[in-house]
């Protein structure tokens, strides 16, 4: 795990002290709300509908068990005993008091965490594959590059006031689990013809009001040039990005307006001028950071463990869970476990302090004390011995954390929506809960197979609805909550923006419509191997649309 050095720690500690002082000045009336708001946002503190919300950065989604316990403690002390994991691999507390925020931030600093760059027009927390360093299909651990980006971008003076927020995602694997094509910059590691590892650089993706799939600006970028190239892109964006219109300020609009060729020309020119400058990464600096992400001390194992095979045969529930919630590890004898935070009927991504503590304990015992947060709002134990899987299953189950639904219809992404968010049009969480309950029957859910449902409470698309196989967007129709449904979106290496099926539906009809869509798919699919998305791509919108609006 990456550990803070003195620079990191001092910086974070100073920031807490500064914020304490800013709050005091706000409370004494020395500064007004208008002056204070940007300061609190720079420290991750938003004012939501019911309370302040504190957003904590979880760099590249990796946590130590100690950090997770710390987050649980903060949840108990300053929130109502819960934390909410989000699509940005972050954690949000929904019930924070201004007067206690500095204390909460001080507690965070003790576990080497903070809320910096979780808001504002800066380079936000870089996100990545939750299976980094573990997945069998990985070329290289992308967290090394996330950390390099973090060190470069934190408080970068030139990029603290960009035209708009800026999000970077990195995948080290051809199977993109980090949605790199819908970020401002996406980086995909791959090997060139000479066998060297570098980056495909994708730019101008994004969701929100105007969704775009990112375009490749460079097929292959040598690793040592990463920061020079990123800086070149940021410079071009900083210079040409539109500051006149909030809705046109993201880099995706610039790329769309001038075209990828013109963008490439500008970036390459900037890059050519600076590529052999101070940002060129020396190999020893890369190695030093890579050492922080060295693989844990795996045991040499071979063959299939008897405990695992036996449990698979004899324990039906375990088998179901192992099939859905474990993933192939690069190290023989190990598996990756996804912990579902999507028990049907519960708010997606919520974890109680008790659950966080339990996961921390299980990670200590079975997964080298490390936990990952996924953009799909689940947790991951990255390195579990297969022989330990039955014990891990049992331990998770005791805390309601073993729902066997990863990637299934009830594994829904939902933004906070109108229950919490001041920008929302409609609620997201309750409709997610109602839909998930429709797929509680495991037989049906497993028969349906992979189906990604993603829900946002407004066009900002924090719940990634544009890239859901089924996307649901909350809209306000004369004061009532309505939902628009899109089909065929995808966030992976074949990223696509979903197609709108028709007029928005009220809550009840929208929930029914999801059932109808799934039944239509079951009727149309060629075989049980054809996923919902594949069927949709084959047959198109028409049969689904007909089915929904015939009954609605």
């Amino acid at each position, binding site marked *: 795990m990456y550990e803070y050095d003195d620079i990191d720690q001092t910086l974070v500690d100073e920031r807490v002290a500064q914020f304490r002082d800013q709050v005091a000045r706000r409370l004494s009336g020395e500064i007004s709300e208008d002056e204070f708001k940007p300061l609190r946002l720079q420290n991750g503190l938003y004012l939501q509908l019911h309370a302040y919300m504190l957003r904590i950065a979880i760099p590249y989604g990796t946590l130590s068990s100690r950090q997770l316990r710390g987050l649980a403690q903060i949840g108990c002390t300053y929130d109502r005993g819960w934390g909410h994991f989000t699509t940005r691999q972050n954690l949000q507390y*929904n019930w924070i008091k201004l*007067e206690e925020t500095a204390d909460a931030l001080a507690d965070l600093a003790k576990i080497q965490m903070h809320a910096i760059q979780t808001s504002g027009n800066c380079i936000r927390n870089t996100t990545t594959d939750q299976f980094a360093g573990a997945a069998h299909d990985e070329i290289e651990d992308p967290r090394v590059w996330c950390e390099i980006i973090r060190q470069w971008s934190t408080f970068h003076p030139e990029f603290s006031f960009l035209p708009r927020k800026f999000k970077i995602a990195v995948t080290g694997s051809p199977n993109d689990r980090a949605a790199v094509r819908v970020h401002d910059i996406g980086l995909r590691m791959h090997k060139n013809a000479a066998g060297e590892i570098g980056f495909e650089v994708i730019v101008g993706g994004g969701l929100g009001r105007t969704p775009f799939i990112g375009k490749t600006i460079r097929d292959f970028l040598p690793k040592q040039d990463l920061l020079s190239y990123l800086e070149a892109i940021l410079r071009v964006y900083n210079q040409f990005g539109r500051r006149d219109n909030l809705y046109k300020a993201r880099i995706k609009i610039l790329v769309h307006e001038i075209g990828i060729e013109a963008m490439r020309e500008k970036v390459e020119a900037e890059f050519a001028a600076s590529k052999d400058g101070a940002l060129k990464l020396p190999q020893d600096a890369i190695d030093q950071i890579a050492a922080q992400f060295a693989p844990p001390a795996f045991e040499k194992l071979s063959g299939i463990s008897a405990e695992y095979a036996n449990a698979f045969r004899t324990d039906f529930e375990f088998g179901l869970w192992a099939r859905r919630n474990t993933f192939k590890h690069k190290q023989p004898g190990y598996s990756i476990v996804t912990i579902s935070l999507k028990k049907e009927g519960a708010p997606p991504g919520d974890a109680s302090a008790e659950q966080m503590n339990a996961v921390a304990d299980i990670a200590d015992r079975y997964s080298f004390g490390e936990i990952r947060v996924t953009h799909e709002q689940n947790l991951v134990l990255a390195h579990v011995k297969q022989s330990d899987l039955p014990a891990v299953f049992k331990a998770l189950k005791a805390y309601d954390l073993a729902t066997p639904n990863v990637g299934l219809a009830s594994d829904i992404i939902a933004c906070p929506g109108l229950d919490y968010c001041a920008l929302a049009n409609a609620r997201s969480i309750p409709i997610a809960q109602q839909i998930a309950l429709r797929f509680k029957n495991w037989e049906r859910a497993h028969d349906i197979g992979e189906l990604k449902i993603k829900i946002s409470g407004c066009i900002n698309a924090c719940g990634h609805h544009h890239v859901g196989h089924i996307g649901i967007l909350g809209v306000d129709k004369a004061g009532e909550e309505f939902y628009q449904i899109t089909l065929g979106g995808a966030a992976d290496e074949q990223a696509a923006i979903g197609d709108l099926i028709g007029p928005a539906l009220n809550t009840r009809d929208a929930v029914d419509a999801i059932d109808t869509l799934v039944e239509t798919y079951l009727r149309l699919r060629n075989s049980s191997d054809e996923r919902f998305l594949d069927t949709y791509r084959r047959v198109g919108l028409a049969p689904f649309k007909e089915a929904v609006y015939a009954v609605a």
Partner: protein
Amino acid sequence: MAKAPKLNSQPQVVTANHLLSGDVVYLTKAASWSRRIADAAVVANVEAGAALLAEAETQAKKNIVIAPYLIPVDASVTPPKPIQYREVLRAEGPSTEKARPAA
């Protein structure tokens, strides 16, 4: 965000968030703030609403609350019920947390 409707002569109250806690609060008849909409001062026309809001803004300047604004309510029920769904959620709390025990 659902746009706030333009208020006519209809029952209305002033709401804001409490600066220190962030809590949803309502301006009371005694010109103080309460977390319960039941305590809110309800006025029935545009002029009285403007006066109520002016009072609230004075208090915002004194750093008691943030960003006060008027919302329409149905005053025929007790406690008064906001017309907009967003404000019902603000008054009652998230619909998702009702079912769940405090951990």
